[in-house]
């Protein structure tokens, strides 16, 4: 069995939190710049221009890209050769606590949805575990903003509604969101599984690299068609109209019950902050 020191995880997560708040991934920047080129002269083009300018400034002066530095979402891939004598979730939360405090990031988490007392350190994180082969711990982190999360939707369709029903649900979600989820968006779609699985794979979808394509041919086709149809809605940057409503659509699917066709749509704003890290286990 292999081992990873708790301090190593804390330090890595702290870094990921602080770095992702100010450094937008290069691929997202490239997609935004391509959208800027395509958008005709006018207010919407100006908006895209300022979004691009903002990420340059954030990187240069270490100012958070957005004041909503999110609730921490972590997907963990845990190698089966790893052994832990501490709570992995505790380690993550400690890294998050340090990152949000030391990075001057907004603490946006309250203790209870109705009591609403701020926890003052942005914990707890929302953590998902998956077991994998090998001796590595892979951490995928996203500070997920509230605006785009609030406009996300889950629908329990019937099998008869089929692909057209799925498309309509996705398009309705983007249309209903308008400018509120801060388009241009990355649209994560989860089809199948059950009530919670659909939402989970939709969330996983927005973690996929932007240039990635779905492996199943139906999902892959949906990604291409939905991107085109969403952009044809004309919602535009910040809902002000235009060609760019969506930068990329990611569809994940999962087997489901004969009676069901769950669809979840998780929206990601243009400030699509992510960080990924791999920590290799060592012998004791």
């Amino acid at each position: 069995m292999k081992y990873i020191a708790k301090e190593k995880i804390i330090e890595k997560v702290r870094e990921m939190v602080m770095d992702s708040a100010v450094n937008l991934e290069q691929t997202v920047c490239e997609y935004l710049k391509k959208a800027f080129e395509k958008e005709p002269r006018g207010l919407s083009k100006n908006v895209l221009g300022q979004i691009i300018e903002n990420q340059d400034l954030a990187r240069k002066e270490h100012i958070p890209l957005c004041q909503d530095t999110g609730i921490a979402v972590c997907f963990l891939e845990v190698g089966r050769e790893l052994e832990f004598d501490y709570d992995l979730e505790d380690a993550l939360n400690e890294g998050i606590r340090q990152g949000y405090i030391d990075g001057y990031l907004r603490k946006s988490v309250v203790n209870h949805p109705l009591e609403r007392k701020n926890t003052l350190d942005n914990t707890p994180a929302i953590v998902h575990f998956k077991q994998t082969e090998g001796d590595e711990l892979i951490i995928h982190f996203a500070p997920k903003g509230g605006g785009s999360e609030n406009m996300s939707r889950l629908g329990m369709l019937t099998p008869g509604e089929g692909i057209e029903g799925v498309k309509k649900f996705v398009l309705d979600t983007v249309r209903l969101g308008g400018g509120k989820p801060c388009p241009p968006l990355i649209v994560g779609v989860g089809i199948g599984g059950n009530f919670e699985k659909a939402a989970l794979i939709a969330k996983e979808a927005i973690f996929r690299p932007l240039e990635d394509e779905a492996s199943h041919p139906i999902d892959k086709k949906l990604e291409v068609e939905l991107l085109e149809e969403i952009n044809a809605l004309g919602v535009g940057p910040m809902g002000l109209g235009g060609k760019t409503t969506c930068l990329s659509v990611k569809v994940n699917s999962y087997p489901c019950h004969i009676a069901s066709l769950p669809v979840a749509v998780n929206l990601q704003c243009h400030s699509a902050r992510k960080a990924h890290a791999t920590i290799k286990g060592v012998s004791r």
Partner: protein
Amino acid sequence: MIRLHTPVSEIDRLNLRFGDEVLISGTIYTGRDQAHRLMVESLSKNESLPIPLEGQIIYYVGPTPAKPGQPIGACGPTSSYRMDPFSKILMPKGLKIMIGKGDRSEDFKKDLLKEKAVYLIGIGGIGALMSKRVKKATLVAFPELQSEAIYELEVEDFPTIVAYDAHGGDIFTR
């Protein structure tokens, strides 16, 4: 490009049209979900509000903490629709200009028209750029709300766009 200084006169406000780009200078007040809830609670108990509303502007924002030596952190707008039920109560008390992002409810639009108020938007997700237009931030009320507390901001050429004007104009449905 239109330049406005706070407090904004009724004439200047009524002259605004949806789609106008407006740079604001002077004093504006921050306030979002919890601050709105508390202000409306105060009004229902006939208590006074911590900020003046007449001719003033409320900006829906919860900034990141200021780093040492800086007035404020990232400070872009949050979605406005969540404040709709509270704006209904604040507008008749004198609040006539709000800054946020995104479209709002039909009910809100009716109230806005009745009050001849104006709804401005900032661009969401450019909080770093917007922080450069804030010169000073002073805590005014509800410190326990952390980023949701009410701050008085001194702004210079703070960039906004008229989303709903006082005459029924709407940038989202043009």
